[in-house]
């Protein structure tokens, strides 16, 4: 068995030797693989500043609207950059949908940036964190009886929460977080047959707040502080 230290022929050698189909698949692999074009070793630990990660997430949000709990949910993509040992920066874009009330449902497009603080002295396999962030929500209320009837607005917001990472390997982690997000939206109303079907924020409230549970999977792809050097 050849270990990592010994010579391994490059992808081009293999492509030429094994034929065009194999070569095409190898080229595809080179394109999708984060290990493409490797030369220098990268030792990633949980805490290394500069480590950049990408991930997929699923948000499940619950709000108290018209005396009922209403769920909104949806997928999203995110990235993370460890700034210093105890501080991680996370940004994400997500699409969420859910019933707003009996007459309307809501569709949210969220763009957010958050800072994650790790109280542990040294990050371990299970790493709890506190989260504080802000973002913009593009929300639309849609009439459930006529999907062409909708109103929307963009609103800034804040989020506060906590959660934990479970580092499955040095590079991958699973994260569970609970956050409360509140958006300071201008009041919009969905009107149908001269009747107000729904208002956002809900009646008697100034902001649109919801509690979220987020599950995400992340993979560290690069060490930016080492990859990018200014000389």
């Amino acid at each position, binding site marked *: 068995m050849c270990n*990592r230290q010994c010579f*391994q*022929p490059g*992808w081009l050698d*293999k492509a030429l030797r094994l034929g065009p189909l*194999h070569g095409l*698949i*190898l080229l*595809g*692999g*080179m394109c*999708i*693989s*984060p*290990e*493409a*074009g*490797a*030369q*220098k*070793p*990268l*030792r*990633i630990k949980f805490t290394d500043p500069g480590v950049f990660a990408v991930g*997929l*997430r*699923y948000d499940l949000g619950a709000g108290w609207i018209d005396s009922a709990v209403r769920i909104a*949910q*949806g*997928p*999203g993509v995110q990235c993370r950059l460890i700034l210093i040992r105890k501080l991680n920066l996370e940004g994400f874009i997500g*699409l*969420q*949908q*859910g*019933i707003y009330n*009996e007459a309307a*449902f809501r569709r949210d497009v969220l763009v957010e940036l958050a800072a994650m603080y790790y109280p542990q002295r040294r990050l371990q396999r299970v790493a709890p964190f506190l989260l504080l962030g802000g973002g913009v929500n593009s929300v639309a209320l*849609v009439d*459930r009886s006529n*999907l062409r009837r909708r109103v929307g607005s963009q609103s800034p917001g804040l989020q506060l929460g906590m959660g934990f990472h479970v580092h*499955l*390997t040095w*590079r*991958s982690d*699973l994260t569970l977080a609970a956050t409360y997000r509140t958006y300071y939206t201008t009041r919009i109303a969905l009107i149908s047959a001269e009747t107000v079907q729904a208002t956002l924020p809900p009646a008697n409230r100034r902001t649109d707040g919801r509690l979220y549970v987020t*599950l995400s*999977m992340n*993979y560290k792809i*690069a*060490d930016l502080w*080492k*990859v*990018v*050097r*200014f*000389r």
Partner: protein
Amino acid sequence: MALVLLIGIDIAYGQHFKKPPFLRQRLLELDVAFGGGALLFEPVQSIYMHAAFAYCMEDRIGIRAEFFYLVADPNFSGQLDQFAGLFIGGEFHFPAARFDWSLLLQPGVARCFLSDGNLGVSPRIEPVLQTGWKAVYYVLPLAHVFLHASYVHGVYFQEGPSPYRLDELRIQGGLGLNIFVNRTPAFQRKSVKF
């Protein structure tokens, strides 16, 4: 006799799994599958066609993108007329010799349409989530067979006054091609100098 047989099985099992697992990092898989599902909140069963792409970034960590398409029965009232989607997510492997079983968590989006509820409305995109369990056997160096059981969660919100729940138990079986790509040693990068 039974003891001897048990000891024999134990030795054979031990020797079998002392071999390094076939699945390791840089394994690329292309799968096709055929399967069925049963909706939990609607009295409907469905037939699906699946196609998937998977890549092992590490020995036990992979990414898997899966496309599914509902083979709808137009004469079956209550079934969705259109239901197709894409799941993308992580896969955590437990390989042993030529076997592998894995746990999956895949967010995604689906394109749904039910003509009974909102006539004249075009199909809508809905968020969905799939969690699954997959068992694979690598029968050849370049081919494998697999069985995949999953739970799909989602809601078709626009459908009438009460939402159409997409929660479903699915099972699929299929075969696929696998190949090791990109033999560059792991954890290495090229430095970009400015």
